[in-house]
């Protein structure tokens, strides 16, 4: 689907000119550090496109990885927490931003269907709290030791988690 645009100038190319203060080196430093510190639980990360990284982590080390990301690798901002209901597992996807290195990391963790729970990272990034509450409310993923894990968008007496695939209204 690359037929559009004027000759010789494809818009996708302009995204590569992101003004990176550290250069491409920081992307690989992030992936290398994670792989060295958590050799058994963090998968080999990939660079999806310049500025966007992707890695998967087992849920037992999620909290530790997030601490390392914030304290050592300069990821100051948690952008988004998404919970996805697959046939055999729930996935919780964290999109984390580094303001100083101009990086965006997609950290994926999976949790089994019969025990959908991961560690809360509200103590790492304060902004995570409401997003965890939202994921709990709509998808039923439990965030362990979240300071206030209550429904947020739906009324408190609702019994179901509507974004699950087995939910029939």
């Amino acid at each position, binding site marked *: *689907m690359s037929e559009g645009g004027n000759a010789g100038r494809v818009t996708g190319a302009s995204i590569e000119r*992101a003004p990176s203060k550290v250069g491409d080196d920081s992307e690989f430093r992030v992936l290398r550090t994670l792989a060295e510190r958590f050799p058994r639980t963090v998968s080999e990360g990939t660079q999806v496109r310049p500025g966007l990284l992707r890695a998967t982590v087992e849920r037992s080390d999620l909290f530790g990885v997030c601490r390392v990301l914030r304290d050592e690798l300069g990821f100051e901002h948690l952008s988004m927490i998404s919970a996805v209901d697959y046939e055999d597992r729930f996935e919780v996807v964290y999109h984390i931003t580094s303001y100083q290195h101009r990086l965006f990391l997609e950290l994926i963790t999976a949790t089994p269907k019969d025990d959908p729970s991961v560690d809360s990272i509200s103590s790492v990034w*304060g902004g995570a709290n409401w997003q965890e509450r939202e994921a709990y409310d709509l998808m039923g993923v439990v965030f362990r030791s979240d300071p206030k894990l209550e429904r*947020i968008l*739906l009324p408190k007496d609702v019994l179901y988690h509507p974004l699950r695939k087995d939910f029939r209204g």
Partner: protein
Amino acid sequence: MAEMWINMGPQHPMTHGLWNLRVKVDGETIVDAEPEVGYLHRGIEKLCEGRTYPQIIPIADRLCYGSSMTWSHAYCLTVEDLMGVEVPERAEYIRVMTIEMQRIASHLMWLAAYAGDLGLSVGFTYTMRDREVFVDLLQGLTGSRLTYNYPRIGGVAHDLPPDFGRDAIRATRYMEKRLKEYEDLFEGSKIFMMRNVDVGVLSKEDAINLGVTGPSLRASGVDYDLRKDMPYSVYPEMDFRVATHSDCDCYARYRVRMDEMWESCRIIRQAIEKMPKGRWRVVAPRNAPVGTGVGRVEDPRGEAVMYVVGDGTDRPYRLKIRSPIFVTVSAAPKILVGYKLADVVAIMGGLDMCIGENDR
């Protein structure tokens, strides 16, 4: 004095939409606060799972009635990432132009509401009147005043009407004259300044930790704007500066939005001048591949992110929407504590709440 909880909302002139702010006061001083949201929850994420990809564009419009163009653009960007569609360059310029118009219209609506909150009725009428200039332009382009349904996966719905560029440049010139007037009007008002300066201070560290984004983050002294720092579309071609302020208070948030409107006027003119001729749309595939796509844009209210999971059919398996104001309002207790009850209106107004995207 005995502490007590006060409900400000869901029906309260301060709220601009349905939500409830519970504040705990000790006399006049706020000691705790708790926003309650969800009154406008429409289940948009679930709704999208039953619609085809093009059918979701008008739903994305309805995320925020104040800046619908930005949201449908964010949605198209996300699906294009999933499908691997490359957008023609002319369409990118048209998109940048329209979302900057939308930014001005959104900021003006905020300014109008804010002026109304703080008792400057003149400010309300002036800004709403001048917002019409850009709403009219977008109406001429798309046929709608609020929910435009204009971007498409792979471009935009149709080309610009004749003389649109001339009218748009004229509108930005007009707007710049008006912005000067607003600055005199607002900053010359003693009441406006007294209710803004040193009210609602949010430190840089707190703003970053609590996930506050957009003008509120830049007003806390963080120089981060997705248009500059992780550019999408043709923003790298544009010459503009990121508006920041170091005062961290309500006045700083007002100032950042005013400066952004100045910069948006410049971007609109550059986009029109640099706009190439050519196609404005390519045909996108009907079915998305198995995989994920992520798109993030600088919404007038902050960082808007969408995450889409495709399963090979013509409908998304999952679409997750990150609303910037949802996270920003969760920081409200941190900003409010220690101020007087009368400051709540200025502080929450200064955050630019939009309940449509907050509750989704």
